[in-house]
């Protein structure tokens, strides 16, 4: 059963059509991957589903749990269980890891916050009172972000480039986190251009130039990584493709 559906979704930013007529469906409790070259529109798609400022003036529709969320703001979408892990997580001067995760926490309990940190491989004793600022490495911030998502127990979570800034040994922790989310029943969307990350998914969508060019099982999408070629006319020139696009 699909929990979120995009119906002929298009988005134009500054006169450029960044997302073109997307029809996609995400199955409840499944792990999905959205792959494609840089500039394909993957992040834009995530921002649009989250309803960020500047990404709400869409054509088509977004249906979540049978209801159109097109007219809703971020907070309303988040209350319904939709969330997004940023490729480059925000930094907050002075805001502690504890307060940051607590704010997301479904149960608003310290135990849950500490538990979430442990699950991403961070020792609560070392991290609870640190600030979510530039003193955390990129990888640590990425893990704190994932911990806050675990604590939120979302229904639908998009992780934008979950492996960026993460070293090989930490990558396993991120993958464990994804499995945990799945075990909570979350529907997961991994936005990536890495084969290792895509392999965590059950189904994949291949995007290029703002368009959906292929979808299906991992095996069907894998050749894109192996041959680095796209089954569309844009090849690896998404910017050019956008302009001549359509």
């Amino acid at each position: 059963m699909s929990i979120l559906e995009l119906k002929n979704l298009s988005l134009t930013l500054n006169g450029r059509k960044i997302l073109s007529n997307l029809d996609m469906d995400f199955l409840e409790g499944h792990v999905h991957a959205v792959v494609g070259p840089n500039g394909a529109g993957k992040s834009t798609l995530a921002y649009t589903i989250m309803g960020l400022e500047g990404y709400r003036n869409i054509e088509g529709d977004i249906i979540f749990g049978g209801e159109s969320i097109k007219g809703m703001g971020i907070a309303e979408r988040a209350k319904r269980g939709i969330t997004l892990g940023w490729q480059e997580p925000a930094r907050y001067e002075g805001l502690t890891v504890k307060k940051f995760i607590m704010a997301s926490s479904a149960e608003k309990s310290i135990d849950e916050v500490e538990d979430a940190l442990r699950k991403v491989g961070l020792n609560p004793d070392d991290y609870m009172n640190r600030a979510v600022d530039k003193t955390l490495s990129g990888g640590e911030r990425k893990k704190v972000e994932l911990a806050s998502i675990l604590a939120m127990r979302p229904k639908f979570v998009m992780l934008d480039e979950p492996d960026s800034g993460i070293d090989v040994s930490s990558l396993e922790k991120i993958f464990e986190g994804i499995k945990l989310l799945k075990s909570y029943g979350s529907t997961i969307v991994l936005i990536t251009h890495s084969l290792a990350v895509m392999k965590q998914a059950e189904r994949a969508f291949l995007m290029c130039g703002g368009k959906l060019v292929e979808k299906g099982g991992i095996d069907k999408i894998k050749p894109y990584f192996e041959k680095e070629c796209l089954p569309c006319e844009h090849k690896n020139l998404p910017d050019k493709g956008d302009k001549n696009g359509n």
Partner: protein
Amino acid sequence: MSIRICRTKVIKMEIDDLLKLAGEDEALKDKETAHLTINLNKVVSKNIVPGLHIDTEEIEDGINVKVIVDEGIVIEKKVHMCFGVTHDKALQKIVMEIDVKKNAKISILSHCIFPKAIDVKHIMDAKVRVREGASYSYEEKHIHSMEGGIEVYPKAEIELDKNARFKTEFELIKGRVGKLDIDYEITGKEGSVMEMTSKVSGRSDDLIKIREAGNLIGEKARGVLTSRVAVRGNAKAEVYNVMVATAPYARGHVDCKEIIQDNGVARAIPIVEVKHPKAHITHEAAIGSVDTKQLETLMSRGVGEEEAVDLIIEGLLS
């Protein structure tokens, strides 16, 4: 103590409440922790430790406080000071003189509490000398009423001798600011280190003016001026950070961040002056509303917009 018996009881009760408000009541019971508690212009209680001298003298509308730390004395436990006004209308003038002798070390935590202020003026006029190799840390935390009828004028002139260290933090984030006009001027000789931080949160028609000036006059003197200000409602803030370096290898940094909400107005005027080719000063200033990504991240986790803004500002001022 020169308090008339009949008044003592009344003041004492209220002061106890003040100290509880500041979370200070426990510290003041400890015999090894030096402290000084003043209500308006009366000493309510005082405790000193060896090597520390605190002399007070009542003056018209205020009090003179003289603090001396003897040479080589290291005071391990923070000295607690409390300057309160339990009255709703008053003028309180504190004239402080602080002398931290050679290689001595002291750290003071000062609470300024005006819980009932409707029309209260608090003037602090401090002269500080930190002698060679000595170290002085001063934290001042304000707790104000929600009425806004208060004016606070903290003024300090600080002189740092060779290799002296001075660190100060001013915090006014509880209650209404009213009118605040900070004026700190520090001069640092050879090898000295100065760190000055102010954190202020204004609302309604609060007026905030902060002037922090650091003069790095000695070789290898170092200094950092930091300001964190949030204004909402119709509050206004002006921050003047002045850093001047006149000696070789002097290093300075000025860092000012102001967040504005509603109709708040913030201004930052950094003045950075380098008068020696081997000195170096950097500065950064950021004024604006709450960062969109910070806000949207919290909102995407189900936090309401207002609560998210509060969290971000609270962090910045923490």
